[in-house]
């Protein structure tokens, strides 16, 4: 276990180089967020104070603010590209002889990257939330907040395992970037980045709930906002855990298949 702490340590030091880049990124990321808030404000003004599927304006704005925070903490940004590059360039050969597990190694680097990104992005985001404070709602109680945090960890793992598996496609295809972008687009809409998925027609939302995507973003946010409560909350956490385990197994499986193919190519 200790060796992975070293990986995290090195990962943090390596990503610190990009701190200005991260700052730039997070600040510019706030521009479309601001635009989305303006758009919803205009929608609510046209409705004269009504709500949309249970969302008041404050709740809707908070939704996007929490999405931004969860995204900073859990999004896979460059990890998938690096994994694909490692496979294409043959860098993974060294992991086959070293007593280091590639998945754990990558997961450690992912955590290191997120830690640095969050440490940098927290300042612009907090300032932004401060200016939007009249629309920012707090979680109903402390337990909700704790469960939100638990769900967020599961979200991070889920995001990582799915992206990791996708990047492993590099064993079979030369150009994985289009696949990664297609997956990203699906996650973006079905995960709830673009809008809360419970404002969709109930049937569509129900169908989406059968996929892992809502658990990659929407679910923890809905815990925070008090949308998911009681039995629904616990069942959601159980399903989320199931998806984490399932995608973990899938990642392991695909890796084993890939390695077989990889060794064959390397002779």
């Amino acid at each position, binding site marked *: 276990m200790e060796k992975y702490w070293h990986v995290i340590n090195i990962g943090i030091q390596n990503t610190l180089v990009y701190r200005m880049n991260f700052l730039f*990124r997070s600040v510019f990321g706030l521009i479309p967020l601001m635009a989305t808030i303006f758009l919803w404000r205009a929608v609510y003004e046209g409705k004269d104070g009504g709500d949309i599927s249970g969302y008041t304006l404050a709740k809707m704005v908070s939704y996007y603010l929490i999405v931004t925070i969860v995204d900073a903490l859990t999004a896979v940004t460059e990890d998938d590209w690096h994994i694909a590059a490692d496979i294409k360039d043959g860098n993974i050969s060294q992991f086959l002889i070293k007593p280091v597990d590639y998945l754990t190694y990558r997961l450690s680097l992912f955590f290191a990257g997120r830690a640095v990104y969050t440490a940098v992005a927290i300042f612009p985001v907090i300032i932004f939330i401060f200016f939007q404070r009249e629309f920012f709602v707090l979680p109903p109680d402390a337990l909700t907040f704790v469960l939100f945090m638990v769900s967020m960890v599961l979200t991070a793992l889920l995001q990582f395992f799915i992206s990791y598996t996708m990047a492993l496609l590099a064993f079979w295809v030369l150009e994985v970037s289009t696949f990664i972008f297609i997956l990203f687009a699906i996650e973006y809409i079905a995960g709830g980045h673009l809008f809360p998925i419970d404002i969709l027609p109930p049937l569509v939302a129900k169908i989406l709930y059968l996929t892992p995507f809502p658990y990659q973003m929407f679910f923890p946010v809905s815990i925070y906002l008090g949308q998911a409560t009681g039995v629904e909350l616990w069942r959601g956490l159980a399903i989320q855990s199931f998806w984490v385990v399932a995608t973990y197994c899938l990642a392991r499986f695909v890796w084993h298949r890939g390695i077989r193919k990889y060794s064959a190519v390397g002779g």
Partner: protein
Amino acid sequence: MNMDTPVTINTAAANGFLGKLRRYGIIYLELWKNSVIREMQFKTNFIMWIFVELLWFTLQLTFIGVIYMHTDRIATWTKWEVVMLIGASHFIQQLYTAIFLTNVVQLSEHIRTGKLDFMLLLPVNTRFIISFRQVDLGGFVNAASAVVVMAYAAKQLELVPSAAQIFGFLMLCVVGIAIHYSLMFTLTAVSFWTVRAQGIVWAYYNLFNIARLPDAAFRGWFKVFFTFAIPMLLVTNVPVKLLVQKLGSPFEMVVLAGMGVLCAIISEGVWRVSVKHYTSASS
């Protein structure tokens, strides 16, 4: 990489403005030929990227569809007017991608690898060769999909634009593309000073997100900034408003054109200063 194709140019014809135009026309035609050959080497990839763009376009339309399930107006804009706006935004963005994006993005790479030295030596305008080196053909296909969506929106709005309106719309789109190009070119010129300019491109992509939203939804400093400093709220809104007869006054078109000229002047100024300060990567 394909620069070694010799282009024979009659120097006698290269006199005067028309001669110059002809000469650059011939060069651009050669660059087009190179791009077509390059694209056809990776056919699957070419089609996959078109699919990715189509998916994102659908995503934006879905977002608007979902919003209009809960309201019938965003400020003064009705559903099909906004669909028209999203279509026009995609149209402008994709034409920009087709003609300029790859080239502008590569500038920092040319500086890093020292390839810019070589380009400075070519007997053509350096900014021309940097800006027009490659054509991304997929962009034209995607722009066509945007035209289909716009035509459908026009049908829903029972809109029959006159020839003058369509001409005006296209001209304003050209101004919009020129603004995107000028701004992004200005931004990437920063890579003359720092190696990592990739983040800038990503940052600019965020701005495209604003260009596709109805201007009437915005207020205060945000609106002022994205109208008069970075005219994102003009580039698509003004041409669409001309088309759907929503212009408050013809003055809006003048503002767009004026901002276009201003951006062009600034980008040329920044470019000249940058080149003057350029000391090759290898020295």
